[in-house]
Every structure is written in C-alpha cells, then in structure tokens.
C-alpha cells in the first residue's frame, strides 16, 4: 500500500500519531549526494567537473589572466606560448580568458533556457495530462506544431525575429525546450493520476490545485531533473551553434560560438588554437552535463532510461 500524505490521512483512533522524524535538509542533501557518489562514481566525477565549470564561470573575473575584451597589440594572432597559454586572436585578445568568460554566456543561456522552457513545458504537460479532454487535445496539437521544427531551426528563426541579445537567445532556446518537457511530464502524469493514492486524496475532497501540487508534482520531480540536465547539454550546443551562425549573443561578448565564428573570419585558414580551445570547452561542458544527467537518471529512476 502506498503511503498516504500524513496531512490528508485519517487519524486512527486511540493510536497517537507518530512524531514526525525528519532529518535536517542539509543532511538529507548530503546523504543523497554521498549515495549518488557511491552508486555511480563515474557520473559523480563528471558532476564535479560540471560544478567546477559553473564555479569557473561565476568566478571568471578572478580566474581569467587577462581582460577578455582588451587587445594586446604586441601579441596578435600568436600561437600558444607562456603568458598566453591558449594563444591570442587576430586582434590580440587572450583566448584562455575568452574561453573562461565564454562559460558565463553559455551557462547563463543554458540554465536560463532550461529554467524557462523545460519548466514551462513541464507545468503545461502537468496541466494537460491532469485535465485531459479538450485542453489536452489542443495542447498536444500545439506541441506537435512546435515539434515539427528541428530545434536549431526554430531557435534561429526566433532569435533572428527578436534580434540578437542575451535575453532573446534565452527565449529562443527556451521555446524549443517546451514541447519536450510537455511530452515527458504529460506521460508521467497520465499514469500517476490513475494511482490509488491520488484517487484516495480525491476521495477525501482535495481540490484540483492541491492534487496537482501536493500529490502529482512531487512525483514529477525526478523525471524533470533528468530532463533538465539532459536539456542543459542540448541548450549549450544550440547556443554555440547560434553564436557560430551569427544570431547568438552579439560580439564582442565572448561566447564559445562567437569565438569559433570569429576564427573563420580570421583569414583564409583559421588558426588552430582559435578553433581547438572553444570547441573543447563546449565538448567538455556538454559531456559533463550529459554524464551527470545519466547518473541522476540511473539513481533516481532507471525506468526512464528509454524515455528521455
């Protein structure tokens, strides 16, 4: 029998309710992390790298050896050497510093897009799966229209229509994330809403809002987390592609995609260090998030292996 929500469970006469034993939040999270590390050390390692990249982005001004926008006119288009470990671009900007600052743009966009898009999609999927009926049918059609575009193409069109900028890139990528969140969460909700504990809560007179928020939503958190980490990687690649195609965050802001696009404009043959390092940064970041996501999925819900 599934555990009933303690607040809606009927008190049994004569038996005093057991005092709630709750570990402190910090210890629960710590224990969870420890458990995660033990069960999939490989993912935990890559999770640490993901955290390191986030910290690097946050502390970019402290770590970066140079100002990413400032030109060093004595060292222009130099291959890597001590002093500029990743070399300099054609107007003498330090590639290492630009790669470090590039993490800021990429992660801001990726996290922003996932927070907006995947969350909006998930809430939409929750509502459409829960209510069903006409609302669900119309929602499914709209989601299908959105899904008829390969995501990069939709993002390009939206970014171009809205004009270049950090916020517009976030919106463009967020919109491409909506249908995925909607689809996955809806299917989870469809099976959840037939569960007995939901029936029981409904029988006790819980309102729609309460049923959705207290009984169904908590069960959606695992699939949502899995989806969100997977989407972070996708969002980073889309952001880089948009930058590469010139519809991302406008220069001179250093982003990995912009740097790769710049390298093509550097001359007939792009200098190898201007190509190699930003791309490596993208690859390592996306790999870290993907493997972290895989680990989270394995720990939280192995059944979703094929769903996401």
């Amino acid at each position, binding site marked *: 029998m599934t555990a009933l929500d303690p607040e809606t469970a009927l008190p049994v006469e004569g038996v005093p309710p057991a005092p709630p034993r709750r570990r402190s939040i910090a210890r629960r999270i710590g224990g969870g992390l420890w458990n995660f590390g033990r069960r999939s050390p490989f993912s935990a390692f890559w999770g640490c790298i993901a955290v390191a990249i986030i910290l690097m982005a946050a502390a970019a001004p402290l770590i970066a050896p140079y100002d990413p926008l400032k030109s060093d006119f004595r060292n222009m288009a130099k291959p890597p050497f001590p002093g500029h470990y990743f070399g300099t671009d054609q107007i003498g900007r330090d590639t290492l510093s630009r790669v470090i600052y590039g993490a800021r743009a990429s992660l801001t966009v990726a996290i922003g897009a996932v927070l907006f898009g995947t969350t909006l999609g998930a809430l939409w999927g929750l509502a459409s799966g829960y209510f069903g009926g006409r609302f669900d049918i119309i929602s499914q059609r709209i989601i299908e229209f959105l899904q008829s575009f390969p995501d990069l*193409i939709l993002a390009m069109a939206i970014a171009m229509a809205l004009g270049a900028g950090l916020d517009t890139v976030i919106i463009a990528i967020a919109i491409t994330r909506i249908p995925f969140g909607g689809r996955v969460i809806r299917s989870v909700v469809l099976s959840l809403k037939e569960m007995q504990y939901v029936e029981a809560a409904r029988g006790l007179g819980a309102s729609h809002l309460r049923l959705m928020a207290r009984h169904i939503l908590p069960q959606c958190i695992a699939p949502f987390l899995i989806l969100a980490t997977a989407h972070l990687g996708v969002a980073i690649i889309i952001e880089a592609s948009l930058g590469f195609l010139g519809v991302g965050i406008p220069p001179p802001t250093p982003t990995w995609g912009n740097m790769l696009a710049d390298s093509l404009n550097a001359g007939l043959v792009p200098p190898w260090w201007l190509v190699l390092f930003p791309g490596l940064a993208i690859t390592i970041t996306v790999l870290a998030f993907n493997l972290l996501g895989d680990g989270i999925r394995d720990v939280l819900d192995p059944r979703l292996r094929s769903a996401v």
Partner: protein
Amino acid sequence: MYTYVIRRLAFGALTVVGVSIVVFLVLRVLPGDPLVAIFGPEGFTKLSEAERAGYMDQLGLSDPLVVQYLRWVGDIASGSFGRSFFRAESVAEMIARRGPLTAEIALIAVVLSWVVGIPVAVVSALRPNSMADNVSRFVSILFLAVPGFWLGMLIVLALLFWFGYRAPLAGAALWNDPVGNLQIVIGPAVVLGLGQAAYIARMARSSLLEVIREDYVRTARAKGLNGRRVISRHALPNALLPVITLSGVLLGFVLAGSIPVERAFGVPGLGYAMFTAVSERDVFVMQNLVFLYAVVFVVLNILVDVTIAWLDPRIRYR
C-alpha cells in the same frame, strides 16, 4: 493499412498548416520590426518616418496580417516561394540549385549512421558491461557532446595541415562531376553521420537488450540456432523498430545540424543559404526556408510512421 495512411496524411496536412502559421507568427508578428531585422538597429534609426512607411508598403508589410499570410500561402502554392529581398533569384530557384547538395549530405549521413551505429550496438548488447560495451558507450556519449560544426572545422584544418588538401569550393552536380561532388559532400556527411550514429547506437543497444530477454529469442536459442542467426534473424529485426522511428527524428537533427556544418565546411548547400539569409537578415528567404525544412521534417516523419506500420502490424491495427 489504408485507413492508417490516410489518417496519418490528414494529421500531417493539419500539421503543415499549423507549421505555416507558427513560421508566420514567429517571423512576422513577434515583437521585432521586420525593417529592424533587414536594416539592423542602427540602419533603422537612420530611416525617416516616410521612408519606413514606403519600405513597408513596397514589401507588402502594411497590409493586414491575414492578407499577408494568404499572399504567402499563394506564393507557396504557385511554387515560387516568393523572392529574396537582396537577390534576383526566387527562393524556389535557390532551393532547386542548393537543395540537392543538402539532400545528399543528409542521405549519406543517415546511411552512415546505420552502418556505424548498428554493429556497435550489437557488439555492446551481446556483452553488456564488458570492456567493449563500456568503451563504445563512452565514445557514443562523447559524440553526443561534440558539436558537429566544430568537428567539421577540425577536419578541414587537419586535412589542410597534414595533406594540404582543400575540398573544392564550387558546387558540382552529382551527374556532371561525381568525384568533385563527393569531395564536397563527404565531409559534412561524415560529421553528421557520426553524430547520429551515437544516438542510433545508444537506442539500438537498449532496444536489443530488451528484445534479447524476450521469449521468442529464448525459443530460437533453445531450438539450436547459433548465436549469429538468433541475433540477425530474430532479435535484430524486432529491435530495429524504435531505431527506425528515431532515425526519422534524427533526420531533423541532420537537416538542422547541416546549417552550421555546411558553414564550417563552406559547402554551398541549403544550410549555407539559411546561414546567408540569417546574416543578411533576409526575413522572406528565412520564412520560406524554415517552412520548407519543417515540411520536409513532417513528411519524413510520416514516411517513417507508415514504414513502421507496414513492418509492424501491431501499430496498424491499433
């Protein structure tokens, strides 16, 4: 079967209409003046009020939105797809000239993804958690993280560095100059194909692992078939159904992915046209190309669904 196909086609037609509305809404109605998109923010502020109105009239942008939409639908129906804002060529001519290159790239990429992905998946699934399995899983997850266009740039650089080789830049048609054509197409196709192979390998592996546990596979083993025959005749055909579906979705990724990849290789295909349209802020070309890509994507997915239904009676009779 026929009812299934007809129903699928009807839904497909509805989707195409929906897609056209979404494209129109995104590129024409979203906040963002088309003149700003064409002239850029600085250019726009330099235009006088009268000039703006004149341009809007000339472009047919001052008519009611419904009229604009219907005119666009008329353009599509007449097969001309309207005109580029900057070039003499109509969009239809551009598609006819550049489309085949991109189509070739996509086709080779899909074939390659199967040729590489399926054997890797079979090796993985036969010995789960073995060394070979772990290596192939890591390589495939690595390929999911590598941006295709970056890999393309690296390949171009490496070929130039070590072999002094550069693919011909001019477009060559398959029937006039097959060798030159292949040289242009092969790079993007390999990059996109490998990226897809990673998805295919992952999907095929998990699907094979599920199928191998089925009763009919055990029966085949029990009646004495050797391992290879069990896999190739009994397990693989059933495991491939979800892979075919995935392949349809991945074709969309190839079409989209070919935009930056064609830019990286400098291949004059439709993806490069899309890149040009974006950098020139050519809303009209963009609108038609986005619509075209989406329609191709929808049609391909219908084809995949029908293929699946043809292969698997369970879906047909549902």
